[in-house]
């Protein structure tokens, strides 16, 4: 499995050289498989202005298995639960070993722009999103101000 670290090295190198706009990725000291991520809330979304913390871990089987990602900042989002777990197909059965940390983070960013209450992880939030979207967006924005603006 010597090829796997090589891939991780290259990915990290590319992330440093050509960072994703609005996403900051830092290697946790001493562990090349563990990353701290800060994601800026996309504009025109209730998360705009917020800076959300995530942790990203590359399991032993990576890239055959997807990275493990979760939000550390409290989120009001139908596809993100209380523990920060994210419901995203490419992190599960739609994972491809040709996907990368970069594509994963971009997909998560896209999920913040376009919540999908029909495939919920947090049922109560999804319910609110479907019955009263305006109210839900207000709550999400309020949470962004409360928890994600340091």
């Amino acid at each position, binding site marked *: 499995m010597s*090829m796997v670290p*090589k*891939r991780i090295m290259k990915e990290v190198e590319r992330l440093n050289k050509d960072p994703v706009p609005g996403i900051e990725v830092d290697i946790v000291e001493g562990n090349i498989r563990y990353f701290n991520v800060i994601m800026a809330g996309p504009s025109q979304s209730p998360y705009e202005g917020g800076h959300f913390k995530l942790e990203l871990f590359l399991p032993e089987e990576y890239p*055959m*298995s997807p990275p493990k990602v979760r939000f550390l900042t409290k989120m009001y989002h139908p596809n993100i639960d209380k523990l920060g777990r994210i419901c995203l197909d490419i992190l599960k059965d*739609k994972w*491809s*070993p*040709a996907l990368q940390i970069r594509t994963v983070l971009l997909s998560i960013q896209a999920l913040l722009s376009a919540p999908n209450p029909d495939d919920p992880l947090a049922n109560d939030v999804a319910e609110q999103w479907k019955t009263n979207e305006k109210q839900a967006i207000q709550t999400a924005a309020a949470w962004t101000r409360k928890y994600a603006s340091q």
Partner: protein
Amino acid sequence: MSGYNSDGFMDEDYDDDAFEYSEEEEEFGHNAIIGNSAGASQLNNESQTETQPGVSADGPFYENDLLDDTGDFEPVLGSIKKKKAWEVDYMIYDPEELRAKQVNIAARMEPLLGISKEATRLLLRHYFWKEENLIEDYLSDSERTLAKAGLTAYPPPPELKSGDENFSCAICYTDGADESYLALTCGHRFCSDCYRTYVTGKVLEGDSWRIHCPAPKCKVLLGITASRLLLAQDNTVMERYEENLTRSFVNDLDTFAWCPAPNCEYAIECHVPRTAWATTIPVVECKCGNSFCFGCKFDNHLPAPCYMVSRWLQKCKDDSETSNWIKVNTKECVKCKSTIEKNGGCNHMTCRDCHYEFCWICMGPWSEHGQQFYNCNRFNEDSSKEARESISKTRQSLERYIHYFTRYNNHEQSAKLARKLLATTEKNMEQMQRELALSWIEVQFLRDAVDVLSVCRSTLKWTYVLAYYMVADNQKIIFEDNQSDLEMATEQLNGLVEDPIGQDTVDDIKRKIMDKSTYVKTRWETLLRDITTGLQENRWQFETL
């Protein structure tokens, strides 16, 4: 179906008609293509008396078990056993035969579709082996059908290439002309090491033919040939891959099921449609000896239909608190109140203290059992009618349930006790023979009798479930008369089996047991035949479940 059967590509195993035949037709006629493990639908106890010479209990052995390319088949003569009214047709396959079966179907479809072998077998799997649907879709739009399945009609044979300076593996990021790689029709290239790791991971997760190109969102199937190419060096994973292929074949077909016995590798093919399970109980017997229901995979539950069985079992689970106390194996003598323990399968109890003879089930006097007017098996709806004012509805329904459950449970327990008793008897007789230097006593007749007892007790057990859900009317009374006939005969046989056997009495007891066994079997067949036709004729009304 008809669209291609008439072309001469008669599908002998999938044609529903092939499974319907007249009573006279011998049973194994369609199995020539399968080989020697063609299934025999028979119940335990029958094989002992009805199997023809030269036919093993596993079914007949065929000389011409070669695969037949043309799709024609000749009925194989050899077995003459007639199918009983309650028996269904089925076939048993071992893993090797399952593989052959898949190859056969694909080989038959290949010229029909006019596409490559690889595309044919993947398309079949994509269609869950539903040949009619596949043909229909393919005829209306072949390209779309292939594309939807992630296939092309003639994929080039997969090969590992190298020598491209521009190659870079999107998985491990190694690059250069030295790297060997594989590309499918989509053009996505990955190095062979990554491909192997990827396929191995999928195979160990249980995947087989569904494995597709590793590129994001790419639906192109890797295919069986390419998978075998990649796994060629790893026998263990390759073996798993083949297993997974077979597993998916059996799982994807409604007409196939694995034998649920632990570690059993056989699969059963049965074409009794789901819609018929309410009146036909698709009981099959695997080569390993396990007799089970093809429909719900539960143990043989003749003659109660699947839906009733699942309702009943759920009810028993829900009511286990209430029913627990019934299971207690001690009761008081109604006359002298001394404690009596049930230690045999027979319901004929005799109090050790006062010698009162009574029935374990209803506690009524034994002398009245076996006479026409006595109905140990019948729940007296009238007496509960009288009591309606004084007893609450819930209590009434509980009593009704307990009546049936007691009898249901008793047959289950008695079957176990009879088995236990057989073991002790065999041991005792062995010891007797050794110590007293007596001549060898053949105990096969005892084993046979216990087999008959087991089958009858199982049947009786489930008749109580039928009776529980059956609405009381004249037809139910007739049903209960038949049930009672078998029950009495079974108890009598059980009594004989439990009689102590000595050197001087053995011949007499043996004759009695064998005669009684034959009689019990007749009653059993009568009951099953009657219930089978009754269910099919809607003779009884059942509580709407």
